[in-house]
């Protein structure tokens, strides 16, 4: 069944990205996702970007996301979830790693980690300064930020994984939680394995039923379903 929310606030993050803040809570853990239905338009998965009130970060990439991003305060959206496995916080030092839009669930995760008294640092990477999202939010929470952009327009020039390599050695986090493109996640997994640091990674896949029935989101390894076994892998 869907739960219907109205939008309480729409925040413009960049030219094609908005944070939609809903008018009620959702009992969800960071890393879990919801299926959002816009009647007559379609249904897509989004990671939960906030639980109380429920928030989503939506990037306009196709007809459904453009229609969702055209919603105004007071408009309704239909939500099913939360679904899947989220991040599981452990230890004292948490390193967040975000690539591009992968930052969506990590502000929510940072909030929970800080509430637990963890020390939180974030390596955030994007194509250019305009694509860096939620950085001021993270800084305002008290997260130490390290930035990398491919064109060097903010932070250091290069990939976020280069930053991470140095920070892993210097800061020695207990846990790395990452969300972003697959090549970035694979690199993070490798780096963490080399350094012996626990890592939890959020993988993206095509979601249809969202509840372990249709098989559309099988990825990473044979038989693994992003919707019920993930999207976050703990290991």
């Amino acid at each position: 069944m869907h739960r219907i929310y109205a939008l309480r606030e729409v925040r413009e993050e960049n030219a094609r990205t908005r944070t939609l803040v809903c008018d009620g809570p959702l009992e969800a853990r960071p890393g879990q996702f919801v299926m959002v239905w816009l009647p007559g338009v379609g249904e897509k998965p989004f990671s939960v970007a906030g639980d109380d009130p429920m928030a989503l970060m939506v990037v306009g990439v196709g007809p459904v996301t453009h229609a969702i991003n055209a919603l105004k305060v007071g408009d309704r959206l239909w939500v099913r979830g939360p679904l899947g496995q989220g991040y599981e916080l452990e230890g004292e030092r948490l390193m967040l790693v975000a690539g591009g839009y992968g930052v969506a669930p990590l502000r929510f995760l940072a909030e929970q980690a800080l509430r637990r008294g963890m020390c939180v640092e974030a390596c955030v990477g994007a194509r250019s300064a305009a694509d860096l999202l939620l950085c001021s939010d993270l800084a305002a929470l008290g997260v130490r930020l390290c930035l990398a952009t491919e064109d060097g327009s903010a932070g250091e020039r290069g990939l976020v994984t280069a930053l991470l390599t140095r920070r892993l050695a210097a800061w020695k986090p207990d846990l790395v939680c990452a969300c972003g493109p697959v090549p970035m996640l694979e690199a993070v997994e490798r780096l963490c394995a080399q350094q012996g640091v626990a890592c939890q990674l959020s993988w993206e896949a095509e979601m249809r039923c969202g509840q372990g029935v249709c098989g559309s989101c099988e990825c990473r390894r044979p038989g693994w379903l992003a919707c019920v076994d993930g999207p976050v892998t703990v290991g």
Partner: protein
Amino acid sequence: MPDLTCSLLGLTLHNPIVLASGILGTSAALLERVAQAGAGAVTAKSCGPAPRTGHPNPITIEWGHGLINAVGLTNPGAPVEAPLLAEARALLQPLGVPLIASIFGGTPREYGEVARTIATARPALIEVNISCPNVADEFGTPFAADAVAAAEVTAAVVANAGGIPVSVKLAPNVPDIVRIARAVGAASASALTAINTMPGMVIDPYAGRPVLSNRSGGLSGPAIKPIALRCVAQLAAEQDLPVIGTGGVLTGIDAAEMLMAGATAVGVGTAVWYRGPEALGQIVAELDEFMAAEGYTSLAELRGLALR
């Protein structure tokens, strides 16, 4: 300890619980996963003559008493499916879990062609989906509603199945399911799978429209269990083919009821939505527990009990 061993068309299943078509049967690894979770046999997702992406989202929703779905027969087409099934069969063989293929088509001739392609993978059984409710626009009225058409499809599949036994999956929404069953039996089907989902519609009153992109879909889960039990009981009482009783089985107790209605084996699908990929093993354990507690020692004691 009750003996859950199940004989179906000369096959010996560790237990009578069979993964129904359309649930997690999209890859060899997922079929293996369900087998490892404890299924007695597994059915692959239906495959047709050509690739289909299926319907756009939303394709399924839980509506309070079960699911409604209109996935739209998403499949890679028989030429791609056949090697996938061969791979699945190789993975399942050491587990002793038979593979059931599922096929559909638009005409008896297409059914026959798909059967011929799929038979190369040597599944233990070919299930013929003549009753998918979700593709009416492209495939017309399902063959399941017409005894003559159902028999034609069955004959075309049997003729191309290379000796592999054929089970025909029947629809619940027909005036006389036994009539259809006898017709496909006369066309040399070896078994029946009953029932497919029940056509339905779920409307969201706040949206003022059906939830599924396909507007209507197939109902499954708890809502259809009494419908399935009645169909299976009729089939068991009035014709001779073994029945894979399917519809609304979420627990081992539900499975016992299906056996008591006369089913030879029990299909399980929607339980995976409610209980996860481990559902089939849990249902087997619950059936075992029920039988032990009630003093049943074999499936034969349960089978058709409610008909006597």
